[in-house]
């Protein structure tokens, strides 16, 4: 039953108790069932001037939101689909007044964690509540650097927008501010503790979602901030650089290492042949940075923009993905047919690779040895492509645009920068690319569509699927299935492998063989699967793991979702759309790939392929 909620009315004298009765419980079938409880008991409450019936257990914030009453929040984060809930109630920006007429003692409570009770009356609009909320932000600002103009989060900062929203006009409390040095030790994440407002979202993401246990509260009182244990430099920690902390940080306390100037420098350097490649998840998110709806596919405009920026060649990382599938599917079949270690774990995700190195060094032999797609493409560009085009490999600068922060660190791994020749020279995020397009004065929305360059531009729908959780394994199965059965695949889409849940198990029938597949996105979910493997409880044949919940579409380098997981869902749908619209949908049908093997690499998983496309991992300490 749908009942329309009227907007709140200010009451006039004598009318105080005559309000239209609303039933929010019924109009919101989608209310989180965890919050409602199994018995779905309803309670009667009042928020401002509306009498409401709400499910028991609902918070003031959620009920107010559904009744059309806005309460500002800062530390609060409820990303249901990504299983990230930050309920520290620490910022005190969502304070509302609970009316207690009997004792004549109204109380301010944080609406994000306070649950409504039968008969409770809440006012969000009293002077006391409004002042308390504004002062909470004033206090945060009194200990926050006044450098919005030059801040990497300028106009993306949640603290900044709150200051505007809550009408902060002056900061009355002048005093000491935090003066910690910036941590620029790592290749991926910059930690500027002076901008930390101690909302602990990053800590929740790091510890509860990703179970990495790197970030936690340090110091006490005024000096507290979030950092690795004993505030050791990030590079010395076991951080995987998954970037989920960066994705949820409301300010610029955690950001990516910026490489835009390095890219401009390369483009403008004489004698350099600068190649750019873009990951599958970029094309479904980049548009958001130019005011487009989340989920808008902008592949063509992106290619045009890159070309206008001055790149000598614009390639698709999807080509690398197809190549990865050729190798990984071969490796899977090799392991299946030769009784080698099973399951095979996909390893396109560098954060995930670092996770297993630090957290499960005893399982280091389990992952596939394939390089990740952008690294493969980098290698092929500096060998096959250079040879074919007659370009000096040393003059090639390979730039990869990734939805990811960990790729920055991956590109710097010693084994991938052998003999001074990097597989990938510079890796930038979707956000950095957006900033560069802005900087170049390109009106993105008006750009005509362009096409990737050949020969490393063609790709299959399978490769696009790399952008979302479950996609890599689906792509691998499309190819492996054909190779195993020797017949063309009829059902291209493996629906069982798709979904937003963190861990999925599926049995896929290929010929007469049943393959047990596991899919985990989010390192916390990966940990469960790894523990099962370690303790001998798992009988999987192949497992795909992505460090970021939801996969690369929700990567640490993507446009900020600002706590709205609908954005991620739309990107995901766009990925499937891209796959469907591709002419070829299996990696083993990519003609440029077949040509590459025929003329240069030889057999998939063969000797040359091993030399160029495979790598090794290292056991690392856990700190």
């Amino acid at each position: 039953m749908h009942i329309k909620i009227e907007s709140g009315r200010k009451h006039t004298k004598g009318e105080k108790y005559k309000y239209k009765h609303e039933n929010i419980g019924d109009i919101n079938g989608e209310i989180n069932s965890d919050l409602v409880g199994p018995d779905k008991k309803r309670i009667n409450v009042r928020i401002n001037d509306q009498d409401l019936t709400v499910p028991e257990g609902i918070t003031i914030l959620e009920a107010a939101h559904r009744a059309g009453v806005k309460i500002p929040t800062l530390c609060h984060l409820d990303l249901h689909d990504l299983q990230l809930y930050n309920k520290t109630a620490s910022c005190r920006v969502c304070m509302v007044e609970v009316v207690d007429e009997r004792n004549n003692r109204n109380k301010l409570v944080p609406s994000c964690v306070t649950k409504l009770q039968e008969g409770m009356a809440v006012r969000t609009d009293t002077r006391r509540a409004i002042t308390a909320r504004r002062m909470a932000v004033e206090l945060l600002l009194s200990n926050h650097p006044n450098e919005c103009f030059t801040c990497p989060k300028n106009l993306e900062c949640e603290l900044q927008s709150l200051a505007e929203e809550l009408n902060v006009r002056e900061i009355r409390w002048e005093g000491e501010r935090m003066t910690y040095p910036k941590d620029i030790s790592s290749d991926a994440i910059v930690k500027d503790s002076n901008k930390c407002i101690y909302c602990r979202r990053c800590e929740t993401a790091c510890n509860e979602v990703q179970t990495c246990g790197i970030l936690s509260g340090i110091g006490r009182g005024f000096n507290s901030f979030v950092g690795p244990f004993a505030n050791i430099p990030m590079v010395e920690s076991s951080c995987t650089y998954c970037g989920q902390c960066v994705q949820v940080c409301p300010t610029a306390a955690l950001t990516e290492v910026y490489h835009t100037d390095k890219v401009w420098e390369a483009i403008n350097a004489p004698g350099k042949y600068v190649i750019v490649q873009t990951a599958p998840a970029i094309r479904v998110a980049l548009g958001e940075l130019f005011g487009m709806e989340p989920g808008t596919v902008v592949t063509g405009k992106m290619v045009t923009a890159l070309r206008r920026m001055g790149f000598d060649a614009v390639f698709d990382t999807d080509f690398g993905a197809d190549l990865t599938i050729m190798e990984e599917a071969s490796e899977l079949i090799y392991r299946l047919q030769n009784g080698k270690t099973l399951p095979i774990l996909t390893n396109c995700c560098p954060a995930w690779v670092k996770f297993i190195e630090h957290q499960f060094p005893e399982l280091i032999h389990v992952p596939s040895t394939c390089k990740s797609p952008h690294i493969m493409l980098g290698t092929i560009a500096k060998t096959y492509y250079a040879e074919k085009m007659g370009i000096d490999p040393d003059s090639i600068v390979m730039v990869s645009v990734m939805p990811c922060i960990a790729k920055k660190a991956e590109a710097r791994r010693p084994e991938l920068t052998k003999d001074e020749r990097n597989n990938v020279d510079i890796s930038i995020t979707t956000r950095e690319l957006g900033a560069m397009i802005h900087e170049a004065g390109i009106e993105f929305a008006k750009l005509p569509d362009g096409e990737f360059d050949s020969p490393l531009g063609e790709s299959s729908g399978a490769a696009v699927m790399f952008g979302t959780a479950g996609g890599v394994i689906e792509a691998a199965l499309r190819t492996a299935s054909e190779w195993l059965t020797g017949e063309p695949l009829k059902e291209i889409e493996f629906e069982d492998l798709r979904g937003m849940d963190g861990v999925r198990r599926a049995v896929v029938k290929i010929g007469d063989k049943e393959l047990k597949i596991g899919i985990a996105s989010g390192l916390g979910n990966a940990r469960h699967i790894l523990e099962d493997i370690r303790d001998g409880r798992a009988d999987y044949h192949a497992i795909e793991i992505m460090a970021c919940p939801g996969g690369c579409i929700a990567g640490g380098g993507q446009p900020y979702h600002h706590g709205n997981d609908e954005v991620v869902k739309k990107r995901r749908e766009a990925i499937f759309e891209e796959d469907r619209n591709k002419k070829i949908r299996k990696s083993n049908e990519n003609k440029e790939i077949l040509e590459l093997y025929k003329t240069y690499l030889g057999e998939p998983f063969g000797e040359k392929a091993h030399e160029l496309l495979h790598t090794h991992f290292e056991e690392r300490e856990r700190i």
Partner: protein
Amino acid sequence: MLIKSLEELNKVKQQALEKVKIRQHRDAVQTNKNILVCGGTGCLASDSDKVAKNLEVILKARGLSDRIQVIRTGCFGFCEQGPIVKIEPDNVFYVRVGPKDAKDIVDMHLIKGSQVERLLYEDPQKKEKVHNQEDMTFYRKQLRVALRNCGLINPEDITEYIALDGYQALGKALAQMSPTGVIDVIKRSGLRGRGGGGFPTGLKWEITGKQENSQKYIICNADEGDPGAFMDRSILEGDPHSVIEAMAIGAYAIGAHMGIVYIRAEYPLAIARLTNALQQARDTGLLGKGIFGTGFSFDVKLKYGAGAFVCGEETALINSCEGKRGEPNYKPPYPAEEGYWGFPTCVNNVETFANIPVIMNRGADWFASMGTGKSKGTKVFALAGKINNVGLVEVPMGITLREIIFDIGGGIPHGRKFKAVQTGGPSGGVITEENLDTPIDYDGLLKIGTMMGSGGMIVMDEDDNMVNIAKFYLEFTMDEACGRCGPGRIGTKRLYEMLCKITSGEATMADLDAIKQLAYMVKDSALCGLCQTAPNPVISTMKYFWHEYLNFVQKEDHPHQEGKYASKNKTGVKS
């Protein structure tokens, strides 16, 4: 020695009673004597252990070791006058006894029978030596319930505790009462939490008891941290078994089998005595499996606090127990519902526990007969500051502050004038002359803008500046705030900075207004009790001593300028 029934306990009690009855004045013509030497942290720091050793050596040399024993007890409370030595059954109370005085005590008092005048306490009002402890004003108005055994028994000997009805309450509870019966007694007694909040103890037990969970915990909060407060330390040092027994009773009542004492690591003596007591209790079967031959099992482990005041807050304490960062959680859920590792947990303070066995032994009605309407029993206070008799006192609820400060505390030294007294530690507020006749109880103190707190009581005289007092407390809470919430982390800091601005004479009227606003905002918005109450000293001193704030503000305000600009213009700044 294993005690498996009440009969066996009573057997031990009868034997042990021989040792302690001298101290209870049951036989005044006894030729046997006990010398009680205070073994509390305060007296130990001024060589009381050497005093005891010297006494023992001299007694041995004089051949008196057989009939005169030296007993190292817990704290007598009169710390100002330590080290304390008391002769029983004579009830003679010697103060400030040095190691060299041991000889005179033995030779003059114990051999010749004449008291050592120079070591006797001198009444500050009458200027006369006091020959019998009964005549000491410091003790006359006190009523020692929680501290009943402190300064009376040897805390390192479980049999002395048993001699004075120790473990009787546990034995009876297990043998004769149901868990709800126990809770009922505590509820009827009207006992409220002594850690500061004043939540009814029986109700807390009941709520925890009702939780349907096979695993529950009982925790003793011994993370005493108020400046100047040492009630809990004294109890743990002087009577550790009372807390262990009470925890076992509580555990039985709520259905727990594991207890934790969260004790601050800065209390090494309390830790040592408690560890020893726990071992003794285990060795006699009073802790462990099948206590008193019943199916009830219970044991206690210690967890050391690392010196964070906020860990006295129960959710922070539980986080710390779990090895997490010591910072509070939002309540609800309360620990009674979801506590230690998510299991129902009951957290009680040391002093609360110390009251439990005696309530069980003497009945709820007896306990409820002491005190006022909603505050029953007694309360221990740590008297400090500008007061003659610094020390630990236990008084019945309902006594007035005037009686504590002037009768028990002996008034203000050097003939100065009383100005204010702070109760509730950094969370409380000041009480001035006009409210000195307020009967002390939880609600009465709240009404006059302060709180009971854990029992710190700091007296200020006319020389003290109240803005500085507020600053002192705020500096404490600012340093001790965990940092989790914005108002606690930054708000207390800004309040402190504003107070510094005031005392340095740079503040304007606009600043006074701003500080007031901020104080109320922090009180309204902070996450836990620590920072919600942190502005209380400011609010309370502003209420009662507004003129002292005004004195700091520059006389010639610039009405055409806003406060913040005026404050930067430092001309004419001075009070």
